[in-house]
């Protein structure tokens, strides 16, 4: 071996390190950076920018019948809220919505529990979702009106249809993604049947279930508003969709926009308050999602 190939032998050395005092080991971030890390602030800025864009566009357009300004819409909304009319409409819509959503969630959970425990359940779930998931809920409305009449029954029927399939698909996909060691751990404890599903599979698949719940909620909301637009007041008591439809007919465009704004606002609140808090105390806390 040539001497050039062997590394040089260097002397060893030993150092005693004094405590590190030259600079603080950790320091605070500057204020703007800390502010920018607040999600609500960033999102609020997006909303403000959108409102300004709307206001600017409406003033440039200068036609209240086609596009009322953000200010006019807001005052129409405040009027509606003050008179209590829009609140009552919202209450009617939300009552129907929550009923349909709850029934859909229960059915989806039953269907997926069946699917994880039996081969027949799996076939049933995959066939039914393949058949019905592509069907727009609103297309079933004429049929629902025929079966359940002009009223809440038909609305709940189409809502269940809107929620059930996407939620069942998501939940089942989540169940299938549960890692094997975790499954075996659950069975090792002697858990079986519903206890196994409820205490192991559901928490482990919660990220997928939550995203299914979110999708189901959005589908339900849009289906409900669309259904109310189509057949309006059920037994004289119309919801938010009916409010929008009625005011469009009477060319109160600012009220139409106020109704739409409220639909958007409820969507934002449910997303950022209900689902975000649910995620914070569960899947984020448990480190299942970042």
């Amino acid at each position, binding site marked *: 071996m040539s001497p050039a190939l062997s590394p040089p032998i260097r002397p060893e050395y030993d150092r005693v390190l004094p405590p590190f005092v030259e600079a603080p080991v950790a320091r605070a971030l500057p204020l703007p950076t800390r502010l920018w890390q607040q999600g609500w602030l960033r999102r609020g800025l997006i909303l403000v920018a959108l409102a300004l864009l709307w206001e600017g566009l409406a003033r440039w357009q200068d036609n209240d019948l086609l596009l009322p300004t953000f200010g006019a819409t807001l005052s129409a909304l405040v009027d509606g809220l003050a008179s209590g009319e829009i609140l009552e409409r919202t209450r009617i819509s939300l009552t129907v919505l929550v009923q349909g959503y709850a029934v859909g969630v229960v059915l989806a959970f039953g269907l997926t529990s069946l699917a994880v425990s039996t081969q027949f359940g799996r076939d049933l779930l995959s066939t039914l979702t393949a058949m019905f998931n592509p069907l727009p809920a609103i297309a079933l409305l004429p049929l629902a009106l025929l079966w359940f009449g002009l009223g809440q029954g038909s609305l709940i029927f189409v809502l269940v249809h809107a929620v059930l399939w996407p939620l069942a698909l998501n939940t089942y996909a989540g169940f299938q993604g549960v*890692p*094997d*060691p*975790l499954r*075996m*751990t659950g*069975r*090792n*404890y*002697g*858990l079986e049947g519903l*206890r196994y599903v409820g*205490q*192991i599979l559901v*928490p*482990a698949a*919660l990220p997928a279930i939550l995203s299914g719940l979110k999708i189901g909620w959005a589908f339900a909301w849009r289906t409900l508003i669309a259904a109310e637009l189509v057949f309006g007041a059920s037994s004289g008591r119309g919801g938010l969709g009916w409010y929008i439809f009625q005011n469009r007919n009477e060319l109160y465009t600012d009220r139409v926009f106020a109704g739409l704004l409220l639909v958007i606002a409820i969507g934002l609140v449910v997303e950022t308050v209900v689902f975000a808090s649910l995620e914070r105390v*569960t899947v984020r*806390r*448990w*480190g*299942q999602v970042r």
Partner: protein
Amino acid sequence: MTLVIERDSAVAVRAPQPPAAPREMLRPLPDPLLRIAGVSLEYRTPGRVVRAAHRIDLDVYEADRFVLLGPSGCGKSTLLKAVAGFIAPVEGEITLGGVPVRKPGPDRIVVFQEFDQLPPWKTVVENVAFPLRAARGLRHAEALERARATIDKVGLTAFATSYPHQLSGGMKQRVAIARALAMQPKVLLMDEPFAALDALTRRKMQEELLALWDEARMTLLFVTHSIEEALVVGSRVALLSPHPGRVRGEYNCHEYDLSSLGSRSFQAAVQRLHDRLFEPSPETAR
């Protein structure tokens, strides 16, 4: 491995030789706690059925630290899963305390190699307490108390309220061991529990496991592919040959612990197992 250190030669001469233990053989044996009698195991791939283990006969006695050692493909993990009740044997029978094993149950708690064996939605103390409530039917307070005591034993007192994702790999395995210990199973099954850890943590965990055994004297069935780990952790090693798994032999190693690493007799024992592991298989020799 070249761990031989000359300074140990004086100790090594005095150390007993592994195969010479006739005095213990004379004592009448009690009934084995876990009996694996003529067990064959198969698993299914999409195309074919593969025999993982063939007519395995092994007896595990109470307070044994019984190690299943072998190369990959010798069916040692499959055998452990069969003892746990996740896989049914195609022939033979596994009995625990005279009762045949039919399905998974809390009298045989498994510590897996994977870190995701801990439900991420439970804190450390809840993870240990959960099976106590679910399977042993303890009351909430009782389960928490027992869980805390076991967590103290594995040195995780400060992390009792942390979630698994906040822990390092070694700490997660400690939780899994604590969970198993708290359940006081008839036999504790460990499936390469330290294989995914770094070398320093692994050594520390082996030491801790031996200390825990010294205190609790639980019965261990331990799967590994490391000869050194088998000799250090085990009191008796069963060597399995691959494709399909068959028992090549059983060897005593109760006299070794982490302090014997590098000693002459330990090296000799390693070499002995090494030779048997790497001998040419009869099929290829023919």
